């Protein structure tokens, strides 16, 4: 629609053919982003637009006796008020299980659940009108943990479940349960020289992407709607929105707007259906932008978890068995809980060889905020626990933590607890060796030569709490394992459409996918792949939309692998067509057209011997070659519901961290001094981006270790800190130096040998920091985020 301003445009970059894979090509959207011109979803604007606002439940569990919207509707400037009763078609949606009400249908199941919508001519008008909606709630008892959710007589949050997991769960308030059983734990336990157990807890982390949920829905003349939106997966949104609107999918046209970070928090719908409903109701464009307060209620969070682990080993430091139970709190709706359970279960042993395992992982339905995808996806919680266990075992055996891990590290050919053979490089021991070999940062860096103290280098920072008093240093190590791509038999594919044409005598490739660029740099890498495969310098990345097939989700570290794979695959098809065209046009002039292996390089068709046969522009002439291809990674299998056996994952990725911390032991404040990471990325398609991903993931893990938690009141299940004043994420002053060591051991099954990068560094960073704090303080520290209270016994 032409009157919508600040919609995405194509990104064209001319960066020479050296901007192919392996180069640190700069972002094609970088210039727009530094000038302020890049159009994020919250920047969208239409001359005629209304503002949507969502009224949310103040209670975590309540029956809605009545809703009176008359006063809101009578407010000047208000164009529509909608409740559940006004929904035109499907009333529920969900990524896997359609259990989430579009608007509350008689019951609210968590604090902040959407109850009503208002569209008005100014955001303040909408807010004032929403405040006039009278909702009569009858509060119901809440369930907030495993005990209350599965107690006799506990309220069943979703009666009459028909989802595929309903049949095998032990209680209707359990979303999904996945055991993994292998070997004989009882026998191994009898043989173990050392057994350690531990109970661990991980708090609820928020993605805290900076760009709030937002989008603009524009009603179309054909009765459909155009939605400009920040999301992680356009087609999954489409699949959920269209039934809610009662429209066929081709009447819901979606275009990706600029996305201000995601980290899993945009996998589920937030305001997408709401904006469309209001637009169709009012026949006016409707923009919805959450503020930060609302954003904390507008997306799912990382599952909080309680984990109980038991490990046994021989005297000489060989792991014999592992038994664990992982309870994830999924909150009020399923979101991606089943897949998170699958990950937690299958990756619960970590990157170690352990032949006897007995694992149970499950996710609960509770009245807490819904939880779902966040970077690391089930593997983060397990990693915190199993790495703590590794340190305990090392201590019990008198071994260095790295040495104990080395003795048990998996390698290519190792067998996972699921029975899956790890059939590509798994350099776990090498990654640990590399971070251990780094020189340690100097002691007492807060002291300048003149004896003055720089508090910025101390725990507490500018708050001036110590000049060195009580400060003790500690060093900790951790390593983790994360799956790449969608697992458990999911048909995980991507689509790419490539056009090659000559413009003003120069070959230009256009890459069109529906991949959600959320900041990760997929657009950079896709252009690099096109340059490498087609030998062109100039590549345009078309805006992502639903006019092309699905590119899957920007999650699970999968976009470079899968959509990158699709771009490569489509480019190869284009190349074949170019060569056919060349043979037809010029084949008679040179025998090499028929005989030699031909390549596209520097805008030319060349033989593998380097002889130039033709300019690409001449081969193309007026023709434009366009190819659309789907590409899928090799299939995976579901896990057996009883034993958890199955080749459920397509690829594994590994990262290791060494943390150096200084702890003010009297005040319980932690300063991370250095957090070094080594990661195997298979092949770094863009080394600059790879380093950026590793550093960013590392810092999110640091945040979980020492500050980040959504605090939910255990009695009322209300969120207590939905703001950036009280949900703290690390500032640049909390951030240590982040050295990165990148290994490139190719995975022969993946395009270019690459390995998904984004998530692995988020796993091991948290346990490495906590291990370092344990070393500094001698405390057991079973819960993250660490709070000063934990370190001071208060």
């Amino acid at each position: 629609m032409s009157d919508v301003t600040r919609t995405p445009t194509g990104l064209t970059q001319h960066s020479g053919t050296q901007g192919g894979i392996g180069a640190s090509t700069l972002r094609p959207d970088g210039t727009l982003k530094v000038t302020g011109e890049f159009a994020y979803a919250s920047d969208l604007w239409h001359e005629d637009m209304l503002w949507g606002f969502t009224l949310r439940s103040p209670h975590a569990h309540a029956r809605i006796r009545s809703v009176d919207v008359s006063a809101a509707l009578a407010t000047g400037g208000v164009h529509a008020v909608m409740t559940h009763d006004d929904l035109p078609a499907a009333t529920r949606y969900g990524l896997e299980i359609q259990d989430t009400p579009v608007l509350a249908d008689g019951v609210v199941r968590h604090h902040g659940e959407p109850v009503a919508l208002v569209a008005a001519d100014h955001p303040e008008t909408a807010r004032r009108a929403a405040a006039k909606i009278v909702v009569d709630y009858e509060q119901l008892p809440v369930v907030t943990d495993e005990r209350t959710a599965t107690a006799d007589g506990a309220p069943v949050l979703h009666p009459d479940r028909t989802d595929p997991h309903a049949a095998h769960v032990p209680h209707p308030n359990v979303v999904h349960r996945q055991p993994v059983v292998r070997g004989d734990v009882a026998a191994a336990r009898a043989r173990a020289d050392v057994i350690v157990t531990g109970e661990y807890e991980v708090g609820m982390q928020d993605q805290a992407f900076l760009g709030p949920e937002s989008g603009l829905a524009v009603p179309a003349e054909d009765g459909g709607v155009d939605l400009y939106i920040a999301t992680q997966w356009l087609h999954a949104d489409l699949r959920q929105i269209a039934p809610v609107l009662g429209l066929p999918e081709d009447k819901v046209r979606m275009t990706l707007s600029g996305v201000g970070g995601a980290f899993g928090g945009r996998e589920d719908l937030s305001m997408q259906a709401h904006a469309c409903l209001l637009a169709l109701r009012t026949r006016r464009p409707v923009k919805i932008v959450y503020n930060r307060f609302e954003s904390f209620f507008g997306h799912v969070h990382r599952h909080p978890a309680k984990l109980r682990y038991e490990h046994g080993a021989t005297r000489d430091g060989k792991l014999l068995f592992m038994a664990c139970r992982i309870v994830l709190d999924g909150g009020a709706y399923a979101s991606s809980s089943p897949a998170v359970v699958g990950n937690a279960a299958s990756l619960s042993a970590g990157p170690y060889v352990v032949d006897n395992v007995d694992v149970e992982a499950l996710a609960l339905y509770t009245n807490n905020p819904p939880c779902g995808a966040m970077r690391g996806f089930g593997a983060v919680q397990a990693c915190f626990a199993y790495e703590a266990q590794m340190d305990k075992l090392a201590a019990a055996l008198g071994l260095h933590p790295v040495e104990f891990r080395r003795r048990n590290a998996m390698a290519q050919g190792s067998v996972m607890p699921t029975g899956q053979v790890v059939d590509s490089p798994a350099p776990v021991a090498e990654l640990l060796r590399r971070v251990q070999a780094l020189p340690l940062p100097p002691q007492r860096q807060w002291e300048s030569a003149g004896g003055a103290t720089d508090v910025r280098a101390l725990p507490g920072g500018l708050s001036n709490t110590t000049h060195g008093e009580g400060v003790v240093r500690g060093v900790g190590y951790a390593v983790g394992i994360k799956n790449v791509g969608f697992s458990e038999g999911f048909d995980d594919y991507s689509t790419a459409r490539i056009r090659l044409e000559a413009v003003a005598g120069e070959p230009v490739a256009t890459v069109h996918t529906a991949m959600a660029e959320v900041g990760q740099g997929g657009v950079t890498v896709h252009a690099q792949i096109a340059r490498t495969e087609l030998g062109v310098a100039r590549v345009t990345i078309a805006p992502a939309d639903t006019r092309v097939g699905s590119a899957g989700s920007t999650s699970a570290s999968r976009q470079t692998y899968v959509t990158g794979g699709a771009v490569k695959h489509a480019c190869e098809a284009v190349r074949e067509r170019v060569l056919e065209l060349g043979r037809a046009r010029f084949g008679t002039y040179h025998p090499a057209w028929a005989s030699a292996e031909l390549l596209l390089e520097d805008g030319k068709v060349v033989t593998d011997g380097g002889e130039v046969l033709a300019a690409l522009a001449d081969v193309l002439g007026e023709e434009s070659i366009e190819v659309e291809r789907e590409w899928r990674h090799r299939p995976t299998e579901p896990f057996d519901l009883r034993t958890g056996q199955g080749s459920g994952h397509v690829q594994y990725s590994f990262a290791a961290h060494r943390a150096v911390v200084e702890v003010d032991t009297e005040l319980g404040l932690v300063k991370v001094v250095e957090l070094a990471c080594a990661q195997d990325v298979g092949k770094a398609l863009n080394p600059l981006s790879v380093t950026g991903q590793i550093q960013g993931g590392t810092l999110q893990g640091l945040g979980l270790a020492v500050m980040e938690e959504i605090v939910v009141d255990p009695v009322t299940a209300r969120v207590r800190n939905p703001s950036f004043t009280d949900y703290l994420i690390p500032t640049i002053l909390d951030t240590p130096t982040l050295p990165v060591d990148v290994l490139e051991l190719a995975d022969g099954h993946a395009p270019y040998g690459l390995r998904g990068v984004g998530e692995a560094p988020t796993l091991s960073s948290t346990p490495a920091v906590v291990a370092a704090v344990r070393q500094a303080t001698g405390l057991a520290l079973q819960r993250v985020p660490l709070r000063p209270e934990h370190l001071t016994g208060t």
Partner: protein
Amino acid sequence: MDFLRPASWAEALAAKAEHPSAVPLAGGTDVMVEINFDHRRPEYLLDLQRIGELHTWDADGPDVRLGAAVPYTRIIDHLADELPGLALAARTVGSPQIRNRGSVGGNLGAASPAGDSHPALLAAGAEVEAESVRGTRLIPVEEFYTGVKRNALAPDELIRAVRIRKATGPQQFSKVGTRNAMVIAVCAFGIALHPGSRTVRTGIGSAAPTPVRARAAEEFLAAALDDGRLWDTRGPLGPAVAGEFAELASGACNPIDDVRGSAAYRRRAVGVMARRTLGWVWGAYRGNEGRGAACA
């Protein structure tokens, strides 16, 4: 909502007299958050930004008369010698952007127990210059805080300035937060030595419904210093004295458990900060190292 833009102090007082519900607005660092998040819809906003004298200070006498709207950045840059404790506290306020807008007057107006300037004001000794069309009165800062986010201002009064004793001895300020910058105090502690009067003053933030002085700790320390003739000898403070001082400071707290920290932790942390900051100011006094100005 009406936006009142007085061009002079007299106009501002008149506007406040006419509309006692008007919310004064200077740097906006508290008020605008409440408006943006729909926590507050005042009938009138009273913009004080245009009133030049609120942005100036006068440091000629024994006090600094600090205009209510002087941003923290200016205190850090220009008043660290006269008001070292306040300058240290100012450096912990929010972020550089917030320090460019926020002011001591705003901190007093909001009267949050977590306001960063309060412990420094209590320790230095200060009076709030409250003015209305009826006249001016000076409110000792101890009496200014009357409850959680409540202060002693009458509905028609505005804060014109704060009169803060100039430092005659070392001062320190320390604040606990769970992040190294941009953090609201879990608790805070300020201390000032006043060698002229041979007194010690303190201030505790975020550990009671209002900012408070640890009077028992002050009196204990003053007595201990007198008994040992330490003001004259500048001899070392024994660990027992520092320990007792810390204990008494802890005892002055009346904290709550909240999302930022537990009551038990706050009590403990105030004690630790009291002991450490006492060590720093006494060390500075002994070494005569100026007035214990900012580190780094």
